[in-house]
């Protein structure tokens, strides 16, 4: 099995030795820090700094928020107001905005991590065809299954590294521009059961974690497509389209009962926590089963095509 780690090392080496990978990391890094730079350079979007007088400050804030609501005739500040009231009722000093909260808000950037992972997943096999190195790879005393597996795992190791990178850059950017709230701060959040006071670390983990489901499924789909067609452009295209458009597709079909069997209907497991279940009758168990079924089908198809194929020029 020591050999398997050599294969994994080889695959990661080929990913990280290329300049294009580092360009992707630089861009992701800039976007992750960019938000902090923008927020901190405009005065009117600066987060409030609470002092020892925080109770008064919270009350003032709520009054201002109520006023806003009335002015716009729409209660878009209700969450904020309820959270503030909860803090006042329970005598909890609010947390000043800092690295953790910034990182939590950056969770949307997981979509970019997904995008990069899809790109890597779409090209890890097809590049070997493009470079002509597939021949040299497949004449070694290693079965094709193992080669395929090493590549598949390398994709997700890349995804994991990139995720950690996003987290670290966000924390660092947040800490530099807003300060650090400490190692294990808590905050108030909205859940299906109302407002709760929880450690922010757990919240970050769960928010990022839920989005990994989408990352894994779309990457596996793109990996399968590129393995079958030996072409990364189709796979990247389909992967990105579905990554971005999955919700729209689900929206279109959600009136039909059968749409719960669609992959996209099952990607957002957070709905079972918040209670906004897409189609009645869906359960967490159902969604996990559907995800596993799709995953197995994608992997099996990739495996079938990779294993059976005669290796010829394009």
């Amino acid at each position, binding site marked *: 099995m*020591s*050999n398997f780690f*050599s*294969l994994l*090392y*080889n695959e990661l*080496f*080929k990913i990280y*030795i*290329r*300049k294009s990978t580092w360009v992707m990391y630089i861009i992701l890094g800039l976007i992750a820090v960019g938000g902090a730079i923008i927020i901190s350079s405009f005065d009117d979007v600066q987060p409030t700094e609470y002092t020892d007088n925080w109770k008064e400050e919270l009350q003032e804030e709520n009054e201002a928020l109520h006023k806003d609501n009335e002015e716009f005739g729409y209660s878009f500040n209700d969450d904020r107001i309820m959270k503030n009231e909860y803090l006042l009722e329970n005598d909890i000093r609010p947390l000043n905005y800092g690295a953790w909260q910034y990182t939590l808000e950056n969770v949307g950037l997981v979509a970019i991590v997904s995008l990069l992972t899809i790109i890597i997943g779409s090209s890890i096999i097809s590049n070997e065809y493009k*470079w*002509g*190195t597939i*021949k*040299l*790879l*497949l*004449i*070694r*005393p*290693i*079965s094709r299954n193992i080669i395929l597996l090493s590549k598949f795992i390398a994709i997700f190791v890349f995804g994991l590294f990139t995720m950690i990178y996003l987290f670290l850059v966000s924390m660092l950017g947040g800490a530099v521009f807003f300060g650090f709230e400490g190692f294990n701060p808590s905050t108030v959040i909205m859940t299906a059961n109302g407002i709760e006071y929880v450690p922010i670390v757990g919240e970050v983990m769960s928010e990022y974690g839920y989005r990994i489901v989408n990352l894994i499924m779309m990457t596996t789909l793109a990996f399968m497509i590129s393995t079958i067609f030996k072409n990364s452009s189709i796979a990247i295209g389909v992967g990105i389209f579905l990554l971005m458009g999955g919700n729209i597709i689900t929206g279109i079909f959600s009136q039909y009962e059968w749409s719960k069997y669609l992959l996209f209907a099952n990607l957002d497991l957070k709905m079972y926590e918040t209670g906004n279940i897409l189609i009645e009758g869906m359960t967490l168990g159902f969604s996990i089963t559907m995800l596993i079924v799709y995953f197995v089908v994608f992997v099996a198809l990739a495996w079938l095509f990779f294993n059976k194929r*005669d*290796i*010829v*020029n394009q």
Partner: protein
Amino acid sequence: MSNVALELTNVRKKIKNKEIIKDVNLTIRQGEVYGFIGPNGAGKTTTIRMIVGLMDLTDGEIKVLGKSIEKEYKDAARNLGAIVENPEMYPFMTGRQNLSHFARMYDDVPKGRVEEVITLVGLDQAIDEKVSKYSLGMRQRLGIAQAILHKPAVLILDEPTNGLDPAGIREIRDYIRRLAVEDNVAVMISSHLLSEIELMCDRIGIIKHGELITEQSVKEDSEEADQSEIKVVLDVKETEEAIKVLASLELKAEKEGSQLVSLMTRETIPQVVNKLVESGVTIYGVTGVKPSLEDQFLELTGGNIIE
């Protein structure tokens, strides 16, 4: 007789109902260098792809040191090293990184081996440059280096002389002979240019339209060579007189310009020269022309025509 290293039995390959390889039987022994010659599109690369496990066989069997490439893939592949068609490497990696990459795919390639093969193929100077900057000849050398990393018992080289200059070809030739003689490696080299590999082969097989049409040994200075007739060109002043002398030795001669051409065995050449001198014929030169394999090859394949 040494052991069989590579054996192809009734190998056939059909792609989309087209028979590309038709019943090829072929055996290469340890320490033997086998030239696999054929015009473009004859099926050399297809045969090689099947030997190294890149393609399935439609029918037949291929064994490497007695292990079937289809049924015992890992055991067979462990003893194989190959270049298939162009020696493509990862262009964004250096030569050394490429070699280390492939070395990691074996359990038993020791650390120093990479350095060893770099020196063997003469790439010390350029090994830390990116492969994208390599010339075709340098890539060809790197291709050979990756093929011998794990000291395979059978080495398959698809057109390894492609892109090499004459000095490069000579180097590869010496190196391949050494591998065969010193390490007992069985080598299969394909080419469509017989002249380039003739000198390094013990035996050649000619493939055309997917069929192995002939196999023959390449003999040098063997006893047999003394017995077989070769073409001899005599450059003499008195051609008529010389024809009579040859006739007295029961040799036919034809006049080609100012020269005479005759067929005789190597052994009889000194005798002929003596007789001519005794008869007072002025000799400017005697040249033995071996019937070149190239001529035979062209005759057999009908030239390098892609059909």
